[in-house]
Each structure stands twice: as structure tokens, then as C-alpha cells.
């Protein structure tokens, strides 16, 4: 394990990243076609209403001033208020972030539960039927459009069988049981897709390790297949898998926009996309910032995990 100061150093190092991301997002929003005032007020806006809103939101100020104002407020713990309905953006974040984290963790667990056994099985028997089936499923998972799969699940499990609701998200804090029921399908749909990639990762990484000399030694000692694979090979094959998992979770924390849209889940991804369409700059900025923080944290966790898996890394 790295010592605490090292951890703090890592965290501090991520500050410039956050700053850079916020700057890039701010500039991107500024060059985006479509005036926020037109987006917020629509076709019926009178020039007076448009001018008043422009003034209120400070959109007439130079870009640098706008950015400076935003940054200053953020540094003082104020993420601002939504352009659309004047609600504090921090409130929206607190509502959305747990949802996205839950969805990401759930999907990841589904992916791991499917991918790890399937990957091990197909690596252990590279010419067997398990490998063939695993490869086929992985290929399907990677190629099938996410949206289509989600819709298929809804038609099968909600419309035909009636086992699970097609929508009806309830926050975990309100009713955990209803929440889990509503989240099952989205987690499985997102997890299935991710499991395909992860399974290929486990398989190829394990195959590589299985060709190492120490594995041959283990076999020649008379150990059984499963003892060799699980006891000797798997741990060493995990490093690339953990890397891939980190990237995967980071991606999911940015928002599973399509999954969220199909199942009506109020996650971060949907919030950011909606805000972009509505030109709600403040919400976009806060959302992206939060997503970036999450990615930084995940990366840190991945680094820590490396040293747990292979203590030589910590040294």
C-alpha cells in the first residue's frame, strides 16, 4: 500500500486535471451553436424578456469573466443555480450522483459475475465448446446496439412476462426494495454489454499467463487444472483486467445515457445531455466536474488495487 502522503500527492495532482477539464468544457459550451436564451425562452420570447435573462445570467460578459466568476463560486463551494429553473445545481447532483454510482456498480457486478467465470472457462479450454459459446456471446454483446437490447428486455420481461417493471425508478433511500426491482433490468442490460469486453480481457490475459514457464512447472508438479488456473494463473492475469475494469467503471460513471433514457433513470449522464440540449451551462459544468472527480477516484482505486494484486508494484 502506498503511504498516505503519496495518496495525498496523487489527489493534489488531480487538481490541474479538474481545472483543465472545466476550462475545456466551458470553452466547448461557448462555441456550441445555439443561444442559451433561445433555448430557455423558446419562440415566444419578447426582446425584453431575452435581454433581462441575458443580464441575469451574465451572458453578455466576456467569456473569461464568466469563467472566472464560475470558478470563484465553485472554489467557495457554490456550484451555481440551474439556468432553467433556478434550483441549486448541487441539489441536482446529490440527487443524480448516487443513482449513477448505483447503476455503475450494479452493472459492473453483473459484468464481473458473467465475465470472470466465462473468461476463465474459455481460457482454460481454448479449443472447447465453452470457448466457442463464450466467444459467440461476447461477440453478440459487443455488437448488439445497446438501445435495441434494452427495448428487447422491456418487451420480454415487462410486456410479455410481466416480471419486472418497464420504468418506475424509486431512489434507494426511499424504498430499497422498489429501487432494486426497478434497477435490475437496467443493470443487467448495461452489465451484459460490458461483460462481453471484460470476458475477452480475462480470457486473453489468462491465456497469456497460462503459457508462462511457472504454470508449466505447476502442472508438472501434478496439480489439477483448477488449482493451477485459480491458484497460480488468475492472480497474475488480473492486472490488465483491473485496468480495463477501471476504464469501464469510469466510463459508466460519466453516465450510461442510453440505459438511463430507456429505463427512465434520473442519472448523471441524462442530466448532462439534457442540460447540453437546454444550454444549461451551469449544470453541464457541474455534471462534468463531478464525473471527472469520480474518474479520478476510480483511477486511484485501480492504482491501489494493483499493489494489492501484485505487491511488487507498491514498492
Amino acid at each position, binding site marked *: 500500500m502506498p503511504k498516505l502522503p503519496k495518496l495525498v500527492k496523487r489527489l493534489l495532482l488531480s487538481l490541474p486535471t479538474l481545472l483543465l477539464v472545466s476550462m475545456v468544457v466551458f470553452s466547448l459550451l461557448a462555441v456550441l451553436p445555439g443561444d442559451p436564451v*433561445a*433555448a430557455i*425562452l423558446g419562440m415566444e*420570447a419578447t426582446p*425584453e424578456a431575452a435581454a*433581462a435573462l441575458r443580464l441575469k445570467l451574465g451572458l453578455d460578459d466576456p467569456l473569461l469573466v464568466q469563467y472566472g466568476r464560475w470558478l470563484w463560486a465553485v472554489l467557495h463551494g457554490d456550484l451555481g443555480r440551474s439556468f432553467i429553473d433556478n434550483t441549486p445545481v448541487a441539489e441536482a447532483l446529490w440527487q443524480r450522483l448516487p443513482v449513477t454510482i448505483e447503476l455503475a456498480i450494479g452493472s459492473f457486478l453483473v459484468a464481473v459475475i458473467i465475465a470472470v467465470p466465462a473468461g476463465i472457462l474459455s481460457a482454460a479450454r481454448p479449443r472447447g465448446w465453452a470457448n466457442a459459446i463464450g466467444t459467440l456471446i461476447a461477440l453478440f454483446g459487443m455488437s448488439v446496439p445497446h438501445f435495441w437490447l434494452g427495448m428487447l428486455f422491456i418487451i420480454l420481461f415487462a410486456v410479455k412476462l410481466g416480471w419486472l*417493471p*418497464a420504468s418506475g425508478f424509486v431512489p434507494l433511500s426511499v424504498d430499497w426494495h422498489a429501487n432494486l426491482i426497478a434497477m435490475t433490468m437496467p443493470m443487467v442490460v448495461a452489465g451484459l454489454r460490458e461483460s462481453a469486453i471484460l470476458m475477452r480481457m480475462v480470457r486473453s490475459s489468462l491465456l497469456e499467463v497460462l503459457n508462462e514457464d511457472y504454470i508449466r512447472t505447476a502442472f508438472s508438479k501434478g496439480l489439477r487444472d483448477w488449482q493451477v488456473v485459480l491458484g497460480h494463473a488468475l492472480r497474475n492475469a488480473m492486472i490488465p483486467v483491473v485496468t480495463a475494469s477501471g476504464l469501464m467503471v469510469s466510463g459508466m460513471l460519466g453516465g450510461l445515457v442510453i440505459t438511463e433514457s430507456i429505463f*427512465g433513470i434520473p442519472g448523471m449522464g*441524462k442530466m448532462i445531455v439534457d442540460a447540453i440540449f437546454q444550454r444549461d451551462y451551469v449544470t453541464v459544468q457541474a455534471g462534468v466536474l463531478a464525473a471527472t472527480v469520480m474518474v479520478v477516484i476510480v483511477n486511484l482505486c485501480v492504482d491501489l488495487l494493483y499493489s494489492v494484486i501484485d505487491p511488487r508494484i507498491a514498492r
Partner: protein
Amino acid sequence: MNQRVSRFLLSTMSSAVLAACSLPALAVTLNISLDADPGKLDPTQSSMLNERIVYQSLFDKLLDLDGEGKIVPMLAERWTVSDDQKTYTLYLRKGVKFQDGTPFDAKAVEFNLLRGQEKTSLRRNELKYVSRITVVDDHTIRLELSTPFAPFLSILTDRAGMMSSPAAVKKYGEDYINHPVGTGPFIYEGRLKGATLTLKKNPDYWRAGLPKVDEVVYKIMPDVNVAFNNLRSGQVDISNRFPYKEITNVPANAGYTVLNKPSLGFRGIYLNTTKPPFDKKEVREAVDILIDRNAIAKVVYNNAVAPGHSPFSKAQFANGPSDAPPKVDVARAKALLKAAGKEGGFSFRLPLPTTADELQAGQMIQGMLRPAGITVTLEKTEIASQVEAGKAGTFEALFLGWSGRPDPDQNIFDFVHSGGSMNYSHIAAREVDDLLQQARVEGDQAKRKALYDQAMTILVKEVPYLYLVHDNVLFGIAKSVKGFQYVPDGVIRTATVSK
């Protein structure tokens, strides 16, 4: 029977009956899917149809529309209009209270109308002719207009006529947008932005026996197929969109029906008359007669729209002969282009909404214009950019429709009058201006229709806007839903609905 056994049975039965009696009645929830999140919960700030749908449950209006689009009483029991069409006296319903207990009276109406006229209000344009408001007594209010304005009563059936509690507006200030308080059948409970918006029954609602359900939950489902599958699985009772391709596929044993009726809106394309290539009238007319509206209605919208050629759908009294789409005439279009000096054709860019339907319509138009040598480049653009381009006049053509309002004036004046706020085509036809102004101050419906017919006769030749189709109100409704009433403004009224 053994006494002990019978006593046991009796006690068991009575406790079972007691248990049954003490079981709380299950709350009835009406689930309505909306295709976009209603962002703002304040009628003075509203700019979208979905917001109007939610408001309908929260706020009553001074007047309402019935199933035929006729104006009927709501918070105003009756009204009179002076002979010069400039003074409206509204007699208000007594005994009505806002959801926060504030009494609804003439002072509250005055407060709301003044608020609607404020600089930051989006209702300012609709209420701009109200020059004087007089509170006659607690339940009578007199509104004087600076000029006769025929659409005025219609305007009071929509957001400008929605009444907010003055006490709540003062209490919440800028944050009223998240704390709406009206006199409506349902009270705002809360929302999960982007997912759901929940309303609870108003137990003191002034219409006896209403509302019929305990709770209304609006679920946000941007994708029409997602909404459809939720309707099929029972998670949604009413869907404000229905997939066009499914209209003709409804199985006999389906748990839902499709409501498919004319709406007040239109879809079409603005042509910028101040910029080439559409600065020439002949070019605009050529494009107009190349488009086969019937084909678009059939292929894209599965005939759940009405092919049109005017802003007035069949649900509107101003609907006239000009609404019949022109016959496609490639030879004439070519001749017109030749006269305009564009014999070899030309090309233009057409920004259009990001939905699949509009893209398909755009692709069909692309194909229809090709025989005359016209090349169309389709550009998917979201609404913000469209409105911006429209206001700035930086476009050649713009695929931008209108959800429609009850009075014909609200669907034509601002779009084609030279001083109109949505006249993005920048058409300036003196005669049209005069006719529209006359129609605006004329009180007689038949005479107004004649004026609109005349204006349309000119506009059909001027072609500032390519009217394509009139949308239908297209709702999917679960068979368990009772008491649903269709109103052509496309707004779902929840008070009378039960399930």
C-alpha cells in the same frame, strides 16, 4: 356445534372483517408519460407544450376549452364584452381557494395579469393590449384593452389565464418556479428531474367530486417506443405520444386504445425571403408545388396527420380552401425556376429537428425537389439553434413547426405579419398585414374566417412558409382509463379521469 368452536369461529371472522375494514384504501395513481421534461413550473416562464400539460392539473384558468375547441367558463363563471370589443368584464366563481388557502378573487386575477405583463414574463406579448385592470368588486373584474383583440378570450384559456396564488408568488419569489400553487385539481408534490413529477389530489377542489384519482405521476420518456412499451406493460396509463407505425397494428385484445384527432398545430418550413435563393417568389412557389404532402403524411406519419397548406387545421374555424395541398407539378416548377433565372436548379441547407420522423420527412423532400435540380442538404439541429437562427435570420430554410393555439390569430399573425414576433421569413405584404389586423379586431367569426381566407389566398402565392402537415393529437390510452376528454389543444386534462 361446540360452543367453544363457534365462539372461536365468530371471533376469527369478526377480526377478519375488522381487518378488512381497517385496511387503507389503495391510492389510485394515474401515470402519464411525457416526451420531454417540463422544465419550468411557472406559467409566466413556460415555453413548451409539456409544461402546459402539467399546468393543467395544477392551475385552473379563467376560461377553458371544450372538446370542440369552444370557450367555456372555468374560474370566470361568465363574461361580457362591450360593443367596441375593448372592455371585458369577468364574473368570477365564488368560494374558490388556492391550494395554500389564499382566497381566489378579483384582486388575485389582477395580480396574475399584471405579473403576466412584467418584462421577464413570456406572457407579455399575449397580454400586451390589456391597458387597464379594474377590480369592480371581490368577484368582478374589468379588463380594458387598448385595441379590439379577438383572440383575447382564447388567450385566457391558456397560460396567460392561469391563476397562481399571490401569497405563494410573494413567499417564494424567484423560486416560485419550483413551488407552483394554483386552484387546480392537483397539488405539486415533488419531482425527480428528468424522471418523474408527482402531484397529489387537492381535497378542497371546487368542482364537486373531482378529481377522481389520488395522485398523478408524469413520467418523462423521450423515446416514443419506450413510452409505448410502458403503456403496454401497464406502467403508463396515458402517453402523450404514440408511435406512428403502431397505429395500424393495434391488436383487438390490446390493453390500450389510440386517440387520433386533429390538433391545432402545423409542421412546415420557413423560407427566408430576404436571402437567396428564396428571396424570389417564383423559387418559393416552385419548391411549394414540388412537395407531395400526401406522400409525407402517409409514409412518415402513417396518416396520423392531415396534409395541409395553411396554418389552420380542421379543428379551427378558419380552416378554408387554402388548406388543400397543391398538386405536384414538376413542369410548372421548372418553368418557375426558369423565370427566376435558376433553370439549372440550386441548392440550399435545411436545418431540421433531430427526431427520426423529421429526418425522414426531410429525406422525402430532398427526393421530391431533385427532379427540378434542387439539392437539399439536411442538417440535424436542435431547437435552440433553430430558434436562434430564426431570430437572427441566418438561414435559408428552417424546419420549425408550431404546436398551435385555439384562436386562428395565434397561429398566423406573429408568423406572417410584417411586425410579427415569429416572422422569421421576414415576409412583408401590406395587404396581408391589413387583413390580419382586421381579423384581429373583428368580433364576428364568419367575417373573421372570410378575412383569413383572403389573407391565405395571397400567402399561398407568396409562400413565406411551406405548410406541410397538421399534427394530430395522438395519445395512447390504457383501456382502464375512464372519463378522458379530448380537447384539440393537445393538453391532457386530468380532473375527470379515473381508473
